[in-house]
C-alpha cells in the first residue's frame, strides 16, 4: 500500500503546479483558447503572440490547451472548457466538421466564441477571424506569371506545384487561387504536382523524384514554406537550385521561418498567412470589457507578399518583437 501513498502525495502536490486563478482586486477575465496543434510552428507562433498580448492587457487570465492535431482530443478539451464557463472561448479548429457540434454547445451555454483562422460547417461562433487562402493562391499565381514574363518576355514556363495535405482547406484553396490565375496562360504548364503533406522531408523526397524526371523547371510553388525549402534542398543536392525559383506560403518570423528564407535568398517569395492573433486579441478585449460591443460576424486579415526587397525589414519587425 506504500505506492498508493506515494501516488496520493504526488497528486496532492497538484494544486501547487496548477497554473491559474490569480486573485487581485481588479476583475480578471478568464479566456480559454483551444489550439489545434502546438507542434506546428505557425500555431506555436500564434500561442506565443496571444500569450504576450493578453499579458500586456493585464486583466486577462489566458489558458491554452493543445489538441495535438486530434479531433477527439480537441472536442474533449472544449467540453471541459465549457464546464469551466470561461468569459470567452477561442477555438482554432483542427478540422472543420469535427468541431462544429461542440462549438455549438458552447454557444448554447451563452459562452462567447471566437473562431480563429479555420471556418466550421455551421456558424457556431460569435465571430470568425481569418485570412483568405484563395487570395494567397491568387497572389502566388500572379507572382509566378510576372516572374515568367520577366524571364521569357512572354507568359510561358514549367511549374512544379507541391501540395499540402490533400483535402485540407489551405491546400485546396492555395491550389485553387493559383490555378485561377495560371489557367489563363496555356504556355505556363504545371508539369508535376506531388503531395508532401506540409512536411519538408517529404517534399525533398518528392522533389528529388520530379527532378529526375524533368529536365527543365522554372518555378516550384509549394503550399507552405517548409515544403518549398525541402524542394530547394533536393535541387541543391543535384546542383540545379539556380535553374528555378522557389515560392512558398506562410511567411513566419523567427530564424526558422519563411521570411528568413527569403532574406537568405533560398526562397524567391513567400506570402505571410497572417497569424490573425492581433485582430483576435483586439476584438476579444473589446468583447470582454465592453458588454455593449457587438463584433462583426467575420473579420478578414490581409496576406502580405514577402520578396528579397522587403524581407530584411519584415524579418526585423517580426523577430524583434518575439
Amino acid at each position, binding site marked *: 500500500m506504500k*505506492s498508493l501513498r506515494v501516488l496520493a502525495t504526488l497528486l496532492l502536490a*497538484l494544486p501547487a503546479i496548477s497554473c491559474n486563478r490569480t486573485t487581485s482586486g481588479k476583475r480578471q477575465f478568464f479566456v480559454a483558447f483551444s489550439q489545434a496543434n502546438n507542434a506546428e510552428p505557425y500555431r506555436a507562433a500564434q500561442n506565443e503572440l496571444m500569450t504576450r498580448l493578453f499579458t500586456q492587457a493585464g486583466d486577462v487570465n489566458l489558458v491554452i490547451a493543445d489538441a495535438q492535431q486530434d479531433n477527439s482530443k480537441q472536442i474533449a*478539451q472544449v*467540453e471541459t472548457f465549457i464546464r469551466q464557463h470561461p468569459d470567452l472561448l477561442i477555438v482554432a479548429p483542427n478540422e472543420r*466538421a469535427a468541431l462544429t457540434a461542440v462549438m455549438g454547445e458552447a454557444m448554447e451555454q451563452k459562452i462567447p466564441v471566437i473562431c480563429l483562422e479555420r471556418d466550421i460547417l455551421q456558424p457556431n461562433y460569435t465571430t470568425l477571424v481569418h485570412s483568405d487562402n484563395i487570395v494567397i493562391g491568387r497572389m502566388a499565381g500572379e507572382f509566378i506569371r510576372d516572374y515568367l514574363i520577366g524571364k521569357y518576355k512572354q507568359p510561358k514556363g514549367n511549374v512544379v506545384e507541391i501540395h499540402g495535405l490533400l483535402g485540407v482547406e489551405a491546400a485546396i484553396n492555395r491550389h485553387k487561387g493559383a490555378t485561377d490565375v495560371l489557367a489563363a496562360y496555356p504556355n505556363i504548364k504545371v508539369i508535376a504536382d506531388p503531395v508532401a503533406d506540409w512536411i519538408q522531408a517529404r517534399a525533398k523526397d518528392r522533389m528529388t523524384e520530379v527532378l529526375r524526371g524533368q529536365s527543365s523547371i522554372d518555378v516550384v510553388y509549394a503550399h507552405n514554406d517548409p515544403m518549398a525549402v525541402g524542394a530547394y534542398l533536393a535541387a541543391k543536392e543535384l546542383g540545379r537550385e539556380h535553374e528555378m525559383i522557389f515560392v512558398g506560403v506562410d511567411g513566419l518570423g523567427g530564424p526558422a521561418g519563411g521570411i528568413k528564407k527569403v532574406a537568405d535568398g533560398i526562397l524567391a517569395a513567400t506570402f505571410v498567412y497572417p497569424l490573425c492573433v492581433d485582430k483576435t486579441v483586439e476584438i476579444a478585449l473589446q468583447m470582454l470589457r465592453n458588454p455593449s460591443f457587438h463584433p462583426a460576424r467575420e473579420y478578414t486579415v490581409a496576406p502580405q507578399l514577402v520578396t528579397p526587397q522587403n524581407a530584411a525589414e519584415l524579418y526585423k519587425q517580426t523577430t524583434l518583437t518575439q
Partner: protein
Amino acid sequence: MSIPVIRSFISFWERMNGQKQDAVKSLGALAVIFILAVLVSPTTATGSNIFLQLGNLTDVLRQGSIVGIISLAMTFVILTGGIDLSVGSILALSTTVVALVLTRWQHGPSYPLEIATAIFIALLVSTTSGALSGAIIAVFDVQPFVVTLAGMIGIRGLAKWLSNNANVDVGFGQDVASTFAAIFRGKTITIACYAILAAVFYILLSRTIFGRYVRAVGDNERAALYAGLPIRRVKLWVYSLSGLLAGFAGVLYAAENHQGNPNAGVGYELDAIAAVVIGGTRLSGGKGTIAGTIIGTLMIGVLTNMLRLNNVDSNVEMMIKGGIILLAVALQKQGRQAR
C-alpha cells in the same frame, strides 16, 4: 479505529485471493484520484463543484469510451501473451468505410437499413483485418508484435487509399449520413455502448470456458498445448474480437467527429495498452481482469479531467500520466512479491 476492526480487516484481506486484492487496490487508487479530483476541482460562480456536475462526469465517460472499448479486447489479446498494434489503424479504416458507404450510396432503401448496412460493412472489414492478423499469428507462429505492426502500417495505407487521403465529411443536414451521425454521436449512446460491451466482455472472460482458455494460453502456452486446448482457435478469436471492437469504436468516432478520417486514431493502440496495464493486467499474459481495465480507463479519464479542469499545462499532464503508469506497475510488482 479499534484494534478488533483492524484485525478483522487484515484477516479479510488475507482471505482474499491475489486477483481480488489487486482489484481492491486498483479500486482504491481510482478512489484516491476521484476524491482528489473532487477536492481540487474549481467551483462555478454559484459555488457548485464543477468536477461533480453530471455533465462533467458523463463527459469523462464519453471521452474514455472510444479507447475504453478498444482496451476491452486488448485485455484479451494481452492475456494470451500477445499485443495488437493495429487497432488505431483499424479504427481509421472503420471510420472511413462507414462514412464512404453512407455518403456515396445515394438512394438506398431506407435510412435505418442503409445505416445498418454501412455499420455492418465497416465491422466486417475491421473484423476481417483482425482475423487476418490472428490467422498469421496462430498458423505461422509469428510474433504478434511484428504481425500487428505490419497491420498498423498496411491498414492505415488502405484507409488512406480508399479515401484518397482526404477526410470523408458527414454533414449536418437531413441526408442518411447526417442522420447516422446525429444518432450515434449522442453521449448516452456512446456511454451505453461502452457499458454494454464492458459487461459482455466481463462475462466472456470470467464466466465462460473461452475466457478460461484465453488466460490459460497466456499463462503457460506449452501446458495449454499439452492439455489439448485449441490454442490456434483462441488466438484467431481474440484478434478477431480486437478488430471488431476497434471497428465499432471507429463507427462511434465517425459519428462523433462527423467524418471518416483515415488519419484518425494514431497512438490509440498505446492509450489502450496503457489502460490495460494500469488496470493490472500482466503484459506477458495469463493474469488480468476486465474490471481492472475498466478501472484503468476511468483512472486515466478522471486524472485527465482533473488536470484539465485545473488548467495544468498539457506537457505536465503527460509527465504525470507517465508517472502513473510506472506507479501502477510498481503496485503490481509489490503485490506479486508479497505473495
